[in-house]
């Protein structure tokens, strides 16, 4: 009915199975979300493949961009963990590039005839998986490197003994909330941004539909949507960076447990 004109602002987040598949009773369909994850992956591989192909001493334009990415994340890792943290560089870099490309690709308008543009990072299932992966690495590496003294993380120094059970409990809950706060932040940013874009776009259509003088007012939501799109490009970058640097800060706890 009305669907053709003003699709709801939430419709863009709908998961549509493209190739239905079940494996052992579990639905593992190839969905639009899967497709856009693959596209993000493909774009990242092609970008870095092309950028590093010439390996010039004096970098070209594309190679400069790739080098800026590398140095940016390398500085972040060294700053947050120290030189011994560079063994986590491949993970942090992959995480950053994947989130950045998924966020940016989600901002592209849909090309008519092709599947709808879909922001994979606007789903909590995706962001929580990334958050849990990060925190699993922290826990596994923390115990591998420090043994049981990793648990000192939950015992802050200088706390009276009678208060220790309560403080440790709070520290444990605080630690467990880390992957969830990582996930909520990324997903909420992407979700909110895309809903705002859609709502403003809806204003333009409604105002144009009213016609006459009222139609002229539609220039204001149009200016608004341009500004918000610019803001969203910044948010896409910022959230990828925040996810990467917080992963570094959490990894720092695992590397330097016991002495801080």
């Amino acid at each position: 009915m009305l669907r053709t004109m003003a699709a709801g602002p939430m419709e863009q987040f709908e998961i549509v199975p493209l190739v239905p598949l079940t494996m052992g009773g579990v639905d593992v369909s190839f969905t639009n979300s899967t497709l856009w994850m693959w596209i993000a992956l493909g774009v990242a591989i092609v970008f870095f493949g092309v950028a590093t192909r010439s390996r010039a001493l004096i970098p070209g334009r594309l190679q400069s961009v790739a080098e800026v990415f590398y140095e940016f994340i390398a500085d972040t890792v060294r700053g947050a963990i120290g030189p011994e943290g560079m063994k986590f560089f491949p993970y942090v870099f992959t995480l950053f590039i994947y989130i950045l490309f998924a966020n940016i690709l989600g901002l592209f308008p849909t090309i008519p005839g092709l599947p709808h543009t879909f922001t994979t990072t606007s789903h909590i299932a995706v962001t929580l998986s990334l958050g849990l992966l990060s925190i699993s690495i922290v826990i596994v590496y923390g115990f591998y490197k420090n043994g049981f003294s990793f648990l000192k993380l939950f015992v802050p120094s200088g706390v009276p003994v009678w208060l220790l059970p309560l403080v440790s409990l709070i520290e444990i809950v605080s630690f467990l909330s880390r992957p969830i706060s990582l996930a909520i932040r990324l997903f909420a940013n992407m979700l909110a941004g895309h809903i705002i874009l859609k709502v403003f776009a809806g204003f333009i259509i409604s105002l144009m539909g009213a016609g006459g003088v009222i139609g002229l007012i539609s220039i204001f939501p149009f200016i608004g949507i341009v500004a918000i799109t610019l803001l969203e490009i910044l948010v896409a970058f910022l959230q990828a960076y925040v996810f990467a640097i917080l992963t570094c800060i959490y990894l720092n706890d695992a590397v330097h447990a016991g002495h801080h």
Partner: protein
Amino acid sequence: MTDTAGKQDPSPLDEFSSRLEAAQKAVEPNAEDPNATRGRAMGKGFRLGSELLAAMIVGPGLGLLIDRLAGTAPWGMIVGILVGFAAGIRNVASAIKDDRAGGDDGAT
């Protein structure tokens, strides 16, 4: 400590650096993209909000899990809510501390 050193006798170099700082401050707001400032502020706000929210999900959730396993009906959740809230405040406090320590030199 630091302010007394500045007060005693303003050597030409000190005076120059303070003038330079003032000049830089005067230029910065114009050079900075308002969208970038708003985006960073939004990022900070989202960070603090999600830190608080996450702990307040985990605390009661853990309490409910203990209730379900041990059958201590409402008490696990009640304690969980309180501990979750405390952990949330602790998260926010340490996030602000990180922010202050990290400063605005590298990030901006």
